[in-house]
């Protein structure tokens, strides 16, 4: 009965009234504007980064470089500070993400086991921390007392576990068919083997989401460098170097502390690069890895967000 009635409704829906068409046209125009507003600043920065520094000073660079050059990239990648900072950024992203995701998954697995006696206690201990935090200074004092200032470990260990990640992974594990875990246990696999060989591979979709969040967080963070390692040059990261350049260009009084202005004033850099061109180039270098990765993980993080939003 309902089937026979729904057919004419659908046909009716296909008919577009003039006001409908107007709405669609307006909507599409709005979306195109949104795309332009979102992308233009990136494309403009990209154009400046490929334009000769001295020429950029004249202004008028919009979407395309006027005097094309690789020079800015050449200088940025040949500068030891930036090369090293990029290396640290990559290291903290890889190590931090792998360690964090593995540990979160492990905790999530234990609290997804209904028979685990500490399940409630562990869950509660973790979830409680979502509602308070010691704050900036107590955390700083703790890190100092632990002797972690000036170490690489400060990028990995204090942020090892994210409660939100645990919740998302646990929900995913709980939704797995129970039979799979049962059969692994009947085959004689221990808890850890079950986790490693059965649960982890099944969790790849959710682990992809959590890894993306974790990797983006690691790659983008500069505040921990600023707070704990600002006087340890060998532990500086790309974002922190960019942040220093930005801070100096924001204050009209250029203190010449950052590498871009030092470089622009140096003999080899003079008249060839400017702080503006280096900033544009580093902005691109700092965002390209993310731009290349996130579109491919879209379907995962959309699911992860929805799940986290509903449960979290």
């Amino acid at each position, binding site marked *: 009965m309902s089937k026979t009635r729904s057919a004419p409704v659908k046909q*009716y829906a296909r008919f577009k*009234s003039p006001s409908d068409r107007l709405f669609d046209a307006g909507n599409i125009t709005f*979306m195109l504007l949104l795309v332009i507003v979102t992308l233009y600043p990136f494309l403009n920065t990209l154009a400046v980064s490929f334009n000769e520094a001295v020429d950029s000073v004249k202004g008028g660079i919009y979407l395309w470089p006027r005097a094309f050059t690789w020079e800015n990239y050449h200088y940025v990648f040949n500068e030891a500070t930036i090369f090293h900072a990029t290396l640290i950024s990559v290291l903290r992203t890889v190590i931090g993400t792998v360690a964090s995701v593995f540990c979160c998954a492990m905790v999530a697995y234990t609290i997804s086991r209904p028979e685990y006696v500490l399940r409630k206690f562990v869950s509660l201990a973790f979830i409680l921390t979502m509602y308070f935090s010691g704050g900036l200074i107590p955390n700083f004092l703790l890190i100092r007392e632990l002797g972690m200032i000036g170490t690489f470990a400060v990028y990995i260990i204090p942020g*090892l576990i994210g409660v939100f990640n645990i919740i998302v992974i646990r929900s995913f594990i709980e939704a797995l068919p129970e039979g799979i875990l049962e059969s692994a246990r009947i085959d004689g696999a221990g808890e850890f083997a079950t986790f490693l060989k059965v649960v982890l591979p099944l969790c790849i979709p959710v682990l992809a989401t959590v890894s993306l969040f974790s990797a983006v967080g690691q790659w983008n963070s500069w505040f921990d460098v600023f707070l704990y390692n600002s006087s340890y040059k060998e532990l500086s990261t790309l974002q922190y170097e*960019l942040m220093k350049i930005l*801070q100096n260009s924001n204050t009209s009084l250029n203190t010449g502390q950052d590498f871009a202005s030092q470089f622009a004033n140096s003999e080899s850099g003079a008249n060839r690069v400017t702080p503006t061109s280096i900033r544009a180039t580093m902005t691109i270098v700092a965002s390209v890895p993310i731009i290349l990765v996130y579109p491919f993980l879209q379907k995962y993080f959309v699911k992860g967000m929805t799940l986290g*939003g509903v449960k979290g």
Partner: protein
Amino acid sequence: MRDIEPLSPAQVDALPLPPGRKSFFKKLVQQKTLVFMSVPFLIWLFIFKYMPLWGWTIAFQDFRANRKVFDQHWVGWKHFKFLFQDEHFFLVLRNTLAMSFINLVLGFFTAITLAILLNELRNIAFKRVVQTISYLPHFISWVVAASIISTVLSADGGIINELLMAVGLIKEPILWLGVGKYFWGILGASEVWKNVGWNTIIYLAAITTIDPAQYEAAEIDGAGRFQRIWHVTVPGLKPVFIILLIMNIGSLLESGFEPQYLLGNGMNVDYSENLDIFVLKYGIQMGNFSLSIAAGMFKTVVSFILLFSANHIAKRLGEDRLF
């Protein structure tokens, strides 16, 4: 009254454990792998999440880093009293609340509008492309975003100034980040630019749960496009909206840190400095840990109260709760 003889250790050992505890320990031994897989992280949790709470005691001391823990001088509510008599603190509080409020209202309005408009797109491929592009700014760091924003707003060839001059709205370029009263607006717009696409995800997910029969029924009743949006889509988003509102009210004092810090400068400091920057300034840069922690504590406690009140109100209104 008769004295009860204390039991000797041997007698204690011989006593049977209460059945609950016995099976608890037995189970704990049985599940030792699970214990090994989670207890190390409980220790981590204790050190990095619970131990810093001890630092709150510093707010009640005249903390000197060179004194030992038990030699610190206790001063009661002194730092809190100072804080609530400090004009600067109220300025910072005003900025925090203003920016939070602007972000809250603008954030909800733009994300819900964009989600509804995206949902109305008929070409699925186009919709997907727009969505993917709209997520982009969310993933880049605030450092990159701030760099881009300050370029766009630059008085020296920034696109905003050029556009406004081209249409004749202004004659001279404006130093946008150099005028305090523009800062809240710039921050609100930056937050929208960065997060509006991302924030639509949850609303779009909520829209997919609306029963299509409702749209058909509305159509049969002669509802136009706008009426269907207003009477079917918008009510369908209400539960999600309420949950997110509760969560956001809980973080009303969290107006963000990075954008204000990165876009703030000496010229707009009266509008850009918020609680988090205040804490950083007093704590790390001036070394006044006690005052800084007092301000941080104030923030945490108020947030906690706000969250629970909002949750309670939502419960009484019969809406979905957070917990």
